Every structure is written in C-alpha cells, then in structure tokens.
C-alpha cells in the first residue's frame, strides 16, 4: 500500500492548502458579487433572478452557510471547501478503482488535486468546484464494474444544478457511458433522474435568463486552449501540454477500442468538445478557464488511463513530472485570476484605522464588489457605498489598481498604503 499512502499524504496536503486559502485569502470580486447579489437578498430574489454568476445550488448552499455562520469569507466558501475535500477523497477512491495501488494512483491524484486550471476552484466560493465534485462522484460510480446508475444520474443532476456549465459534461458523460458500454436501454436510468433533479433546482431562476445571461468565455480557440492548459511561468511545459492535449485525446480514442473505461472517458471528452463547438456555432463563447474545468478533468482522466495502457513501465514517471511543476506554480495568499483582489480586506482595515467616521471611498468597478463585502463583514454598514472614481466626484479615499496600468496619483491626494500582493494603492487626502 505504498503509492496510495503517498497519494493520501498529497491529498491531505492539498486539503490543508485549500483550508488555509479559504480561511486567509481576501474576498474576490466574483465571490463578492455572488454574495451581494445572490446570497444577501431574500430567498424569493434568489429564485427570481438569474445571471451567469448565479450558480444556483451553490448560491443556495452559500446562503444557508452564511445564515448559519455569519457574513465572512470562510462561511461563504464553506460549501465549495467541503466540496473540495470530498473531491480529494473521490479522487483517491477513483484512482484506487482504476489503478489499485500503483504509481498511477499517485499520478491521477496529483493531477486532479494540483492542476492549475482546477486548483483555485476547490475553496473559492463559486459553483465550479462543487459541480466538479458531483461530476467526479458520477465518474466514480460509472467507472466501476457495476455502476449504480440512479446514483450517478443524481450526481450529474446536482453537478448541473451547482453550475449550469456542467450540463454539458453531464450530458456527455451520460451519452458517453451508454455508447461506450453499448447499454442504450439503460440510457433513461442514467439520464432521467439527474435531469429531473437539475430541472427542479434550476428552472425557476433560469426562467428569468435571457440570451445575454451567458456572457463569460473566450472569443478565440487559442485563448480558450491557453486558459485551460497553460502553466504560468512554465512556457515550455505549457507548449508541450497544449500540443499533447489533442494527441492524448486521439490516442485515447484509438486505444479506447479495447478498454471500456478509456473509451468512456475519451468519448465523453469528445462529446464535450463537440457540444462546445455546437454552442460556439450557436453564438456562445468558447470555455475560458473556469468554464472549461470539466474538459481539463476529463482530459486528465484520459491521460492517466492512457498511461495505464502504456507498455513502457516508466510512463507513470513522465506523467508525474508535471505535478511537480504544478506545485511550484500553486499561488498562496490569493486566487490566481483575482490577484488584484487580494488586498480588499487589508484596504478596508487601513481605512478604518484612519479613524474617519463615515469615509467616502472611490474604487474601480472590479474592486467595489469585494470592498462592499468587506464593509458589511466589518460592520461598517453606516459607511456610504463605494463609488466609481469619476471626474468631479470628490471622495476621502481612492483605491487604485496598478496591475493593469501605470500608477496615476489622483489630484490632491497622497498614497497611504500599498498592498504587497495585489499592488493596489490606497490614496487619502
């Protein structure tokens, strides 16, 4: 039981890492938008409003958590964090089911737990991690010799309910599994319960969705691909992975002819890609980063399962090598897409420390949601709302981002403090 122990240790470390981030990282814009728009309002508003940010089941769970534990980052992130823990456990179970106590166990666990495209979503308060957890639970069921289809279907339904993007892999996994096993008669068993559950949970808010509700994504295939397989700081490895990605799929389709499980993974991934292409033709954007995490997960499953079929016994070592790189690029203290948000909490503390009773604050729109969350969390409800910096609008404090453009000092103000992680500068009069 050597390799499974190594995996357990790796996964435990991942769990601690996620817990630490959920506890310590400042709120991000998207989380704060979720909290301010889809957690804070009454239940009726949650049911009767929709936006791409409203990951319905996840928002419901966040509301329960916030109601129970108060308005703070950890309470908001609790559903996602618990989902992340369960995902790590499921990764362990799935690896054991597929590879037993072999080096590939460690490879699969390492890739799933630390791949940069997945890493942020196991603790941040968005529905992606939770949906991924449910999806992996379904894969775990379906990859077994005697799958419980009803349970798998339920997980897939919950996955789509936690994040609508996951309706694509849910449908792909259902068709992929039935096609790979040639079990078309069992298609309703796998499709109907999950679809019903997903519909019941999501349909009321979705009834308010319009064509412009689904706006997040990439315009070009290359940027989509880069967001999914690129490794910041490892350009060579990124290029290798981006070249390897289609090759792995083609190889998985080829070798899947004699391997039910590999065929299931490969066909599901192919169906997902076809669905993405169809949606693009219908005018929707390509997956970008988080909206394509299911593609990365299915690709990892194909990769590691393919490695298991390799006649060369050290293939596992090649497959394990990138995990080391993943560990190197794992960020601490912030979430990668929202590094500019890492100073929200500290900025509000600094402003409070100035002793101004009711400070007026101007901040760019990308920071205002997070600052509003922090204001509420710290109990400064009597402070006026954060406003956008505009000509002619006089405020006592101005917060400026420095990551996107060179720093410009607002007229008549002086810098008070600069956050070392996010680079935002707080100006005061």
């Amino acid at each position, binding site marked *: 039981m050597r390799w499974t122990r190594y995996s357990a240790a790796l996964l435990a470390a991942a769990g601690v890492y996620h817990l630490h981030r959920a506890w310590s990282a400042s709120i991000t814009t998207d989380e704060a938008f979720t909290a301010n728009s889809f957690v804070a309002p009454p239940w009726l508003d949650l049911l009767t409003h929709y936006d791409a940010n409203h990951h319905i089941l996840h928002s419901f769970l966040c509301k329960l958590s916030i109601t129970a534990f108060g308005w703070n980052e950890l309470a908001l992130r609790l559903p996602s964090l618990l989902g992340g823990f369960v995902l790590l456990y499921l990764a362990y179970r799935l690896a054991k089911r597929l590879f037993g106590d072999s080096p590939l166990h460690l490879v699969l666990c390492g890739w799933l737990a630390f791949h940069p495209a997945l890493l942020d979503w196991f603790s941040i308060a968005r529905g992606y991690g939770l949906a991924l957890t449910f999806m992996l639970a379904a894969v775990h069921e379906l990859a077994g010799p005697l799958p419980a289809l009803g349970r798998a279907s339920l997980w897939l339904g919950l996955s789509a309910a936690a994040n609508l993007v996951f309706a694509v892999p849910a449908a792909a996994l259902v068709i992929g599994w039935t096609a790979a096993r040639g079990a078309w008669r069992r298609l309703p068993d796998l499709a*109907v319960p999950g679809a019903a559950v997903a519909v019941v949970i999501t349909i009321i808010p979705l009834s308010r969705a319009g064509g412009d509700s689904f706006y997040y994504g990439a315009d070009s295939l290359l940027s989509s691909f880069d967001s999914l397989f690129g490794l910041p700081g490892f350009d060579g490895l990124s290029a290798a992975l981006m070249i390897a990605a289609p090759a792995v799929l083609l190889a998985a389709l080829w070798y899947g002819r004699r391997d039910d499980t590999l065929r299931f993974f490969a066909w599901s991934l192919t169906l997902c890609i076809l669905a993405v292409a169809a949606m693009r033709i219908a005018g929707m954007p390509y997956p970008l980063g988080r909206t394509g995490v299911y593609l990365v997960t299915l690709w990892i499953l194909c990769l590691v399962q393919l490695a298991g079929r390799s006649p060369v016994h050290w293939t596992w070592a090649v497959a394990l090598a990138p995990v080391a790189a993943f560990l190197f690029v794992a960020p601490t203290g912030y979430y990668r897409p929202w590094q500019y948000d890492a100073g929200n909490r500290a900025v509000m503390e600094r402003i409070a420390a100035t002793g101004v009773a009711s400070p007026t604050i101007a901040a760019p729109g990308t920071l205002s949601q997070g600052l509003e969350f922090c204001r509420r969390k710290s109990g400064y409800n009597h402070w006026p709302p954060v406003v956008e910096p505009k000509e002619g609008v006089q405020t006592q404090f101005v917060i400026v981002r420095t990551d996107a453009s060179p720093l410009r000092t607002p007229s008549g103000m002086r810098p008070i403090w600069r956050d070392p992680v996010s680079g935002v500068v707080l100006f005061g009069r």
Partner: protein
Amino acid sequence: MRPFSAALYGGIVPLIAVSCAGFLALRAMRIVARRGETWPLAVAIGSPLCALLYAVLHFAGAARRGFFFATAAVLLAAAIRWHPKRTGDPIPAWPGLALAFVLAVFGTVYLLAAAGPDTTPPPFDATLAQAAAAVRAPGGAGPPDLAASLLLAPFVLGGPSAVAVFHLGFLFALALLCAAAARRLALVWMPAAHANWSYFAAGTLVFASPALALAACDARTELIGILALTAGLFLAALAVADRKPAAAAASAVALALVLPAWTQAAAFPGFLFLPFNHAWAAIPFAAIAAAVLVARYRAILILIAAFHLVTSWPGTARLLSPPRLAVLNPLTWQDATTNDRDGFLNNHLPGYMHARFLDESTLPNSVIATGIDIPRAWTSRKVTSLRAWDHIIRTAYDPAHRPDRIEIRRFSARTGRHLPVPLRSPAAEIRLFYKGVEIARNPQWRVRCPEAFDNSLLTACLSEFAEIDFGAPVAVDEIRIQGVKGVSTGWPTGMRRAAIEELKRAGITHLLLVDSSGLPGEISRNARSWGVHETGARAGAHLYALD
C-alpha cells in the same frame, strides 16, 4: 349565490349532453376504449356533434332553454340505455385516488374562478361574443362557427359564467385523457406497477398547468381545441395500431373542433412546460412524455409532481412566474358567489362598464367606433375598432397631419396606357394635367392606391408607388400631388364634418372616445363643426352620436 348556481348547472348540463352524445357515438362506431379513456373520448367526440346539433337548433330558431334541457335529457336517457363497452384493467387505486385528490383540490379553486363573475378579456372573448350575438339576435348576426355553436347551450342556460364552467369541464376531460394515454403508453415498456403511476403523473401535470387553468376558467375555447387535438391524435394512433377504421372516423370527428387549440396568448404554463408558453397545445403531449419517462423512478415522479403542484398553485405561481406571463386570478368564495356581479365586473373587467354604457345609451342597431377594448359579449351593440379611422380624424383637425401642400411635376408630354407615379411621401390626391388642363378622372381607370384618386383629402396613399391604367393611351405632361411636400396651398373648411361623413358612410353611428386620446376635448369644443353631439360620458369615456 343564485348566479353562481346558475353558472354551475348552466355549465354542467351541456357537459352532460356532450358526454352522452359522445357515449352514443362511441357505441355506434363500436369503439371499445379502455377504462379511464371512455369519458374523455366521449367529450371530445360529442362536442362537434352537439355543436352541429345546437347550430341546427339555432337556425331553426329553437336555441332556447327548454330545448337545451330537453336535448340533454334525451341524450342522457339514450346514453344510459346504449352506453359504450369498456375493456382493460380498472383504474389503479392509489394513483387514481392521488389524482382524484389533486383534481378535487385544484378543481375547487378553478370552479370558483369559472363559476364566479366571468372576466374573459378581449380579444379572447371572440367566440363567446359570437355566441352571445347569435342568442341575442338569432336572425341578425351571421352564422356562428362550430365552436361558438357549442357555447350556445351553456350561454343560454347560465350566461358567460356557465360557458366558463362548461369550458372547465374540458380541462377535466383533457387531464383524464392524458392520464389514460400515459398509462396505455407506459404499459408498452414497463410493468403495470410502474405504468400505473404515469396515470397520476400525466393527469397531475396537465390539470395543474396554470396556462391551461387560466384558459379553462374563462369563457374561451382553447381547451376545446386542445382536447380535440389530443383525442384526435389518440384515436388516430388507435386506428393505426388496432387497424380500426371506426377509430379513424372518430378521430376525424374529434379533430373538427381543433382550430381553437391555436392561440396567440402567452400565459405561464408551469415551470416544467415553460417553452410552451405560446403553444399550449403541446402541453398535454409533453406531460404524457414526461409522465412515461419518470414513471419508473417513483421518488423522481413524486419530486416532479410535487414541484409542479407547488409552483403551479395560483398563489405560488403569481410569486415565482416570469412577470410577462399571465396567471390565473383565483376568486374567493365571497367574490364567486356575490349577487352583485355587475359591481364586481365594473372593478375587474376592463371595458365592462363601457359595454353596459353602450347598451344603455344607444339604440339596438347602433354601430360604435371606439379605441377601447370592449368585452363584446356584454353588449348587444355592434362595436368596431376606431384604429382604421384614426388617420382620417386626425387629418381633419390636426394641422400637423394636414396634406396642405402641392408638389407639381412637369415633364415632356407622355402618351401611354399606363402611368407610374413614384411617391416620396403620403399622397392625399393625385391629379393629372395635359397642356394645363386637368384630365378628368374616368371610372374605367384602374388605379393602384385608390386613396389618392377618391377626391378626399382625408384619405391618403401611404405606398411608395401609385399607378394608373387608363385603359387606352392618354397624354399627360403634368402631375400634381397634394400631400405634405411642395408649395403651400389652402386647406378647405368643413373637413371635420367630411371626416364624420366618411364614418357615416361606413355605417358608424357613434364614437366612444377616451379622455387619454385627447380627442374628446377637440370634439367637444368643435362639436358643431364635426357634426356630432355628446350623448353621455362614463368612466373616462365620452359617447358622441353622429348627426
């Protein structure tokens, strides 16, 4: 309470007649339906037969209470004597009881809404208005169509609310037909223990659908059409599967009333059927498909049914449904059984007060032009839309709309049979000249855009092109177009009266105008110029008689 009970028996008695006619037809055609299918099929087949019967009674001048009661009694006696045969297993106990419970709970709410004061809004009251006109003036109005003929009996027996109760009966029939169809379909693929629950699911999904309920509780005809479509296709499927020509004939009979199934109305159909908010006819088929799909998964079936019931309950639906979609307004017992229906309708049916006002203030053969949506079942006067005359009236008094300019086009003489006239703006009149002399208009001319050749400055050709076919070659070297372009010319006096003369030529005797249109002020100030006089005003609307 009395109008409420009148609506109940006025709706139920014709429903009994329709059912009995259907039973007799099923028996005559030797169609053996399974248990649970017979009554809904009988309603679907009996409806066109009764509609035909009522149309005959109408033409014979016998569309009266006594005849309708007698018809129902005779049909009932005959159906008891010659009832159709049934086959198959009885309705399963628990699913049947569960569906009966749903029907009872929701049905009570629906029945109150249907038998209470009828608030069918225009334009959905067109068939009811047709039936009402046929009843009020048997020889005057044109022949009612098949759906309107079917409504004659309930309208005569209990008024508009009875029509609503009668219409609600079709929702019961539709729900039970869908339940039976789902069960029949499910039995093909799964054991009876599972298939039986599809009976409950399909019936529940259809009966609780708010869009169907909204239509069913009004004096409309959509449910008649949807039942006709569903039963027609059901019978057609039976005809194909069992190779029964009689079932094909029955299908054709049922489909005779299919037209009202197509509606332009948008209503909340329940969250599960949201894509069908404009296509209610698809709801029964979607419900059957959904019920068969979930029948094998008991927990999922209960979840779906519970979700549908909770979110379709009128109070919840009002809270959760998209605001652009209409939902049923339930009535309290007090409102439903109120004896002061007039007072209720004054407050809850837009245009009702005006409809009653017209009846009180005009002679029976009056024709009233108005921009108000009048519920025409509530007035015996002929009401026509003012929209077609709006341009003429505005041109008559509003300087901004006057075609008081002339555009002169001169060119070298052109002789030909056809003369095209391209237009850059609306043309009130087009006159042709040759060597400075106007070419007199000839009745033999064939013109495109006749509004420009009618000697009336109030009518205008709005097209981009007018054309004259002289019938023989005619020489023309000048065209004068009176419209909004060119040099200014005088505006003749008496145009207001001319506009009213146009209306009178169309048979209009009165104008009913709302304050918000701005017209009543102008017409009251210049009543003499217009040639009208005000005969009354009510609820923000003024009634003018044309002199």
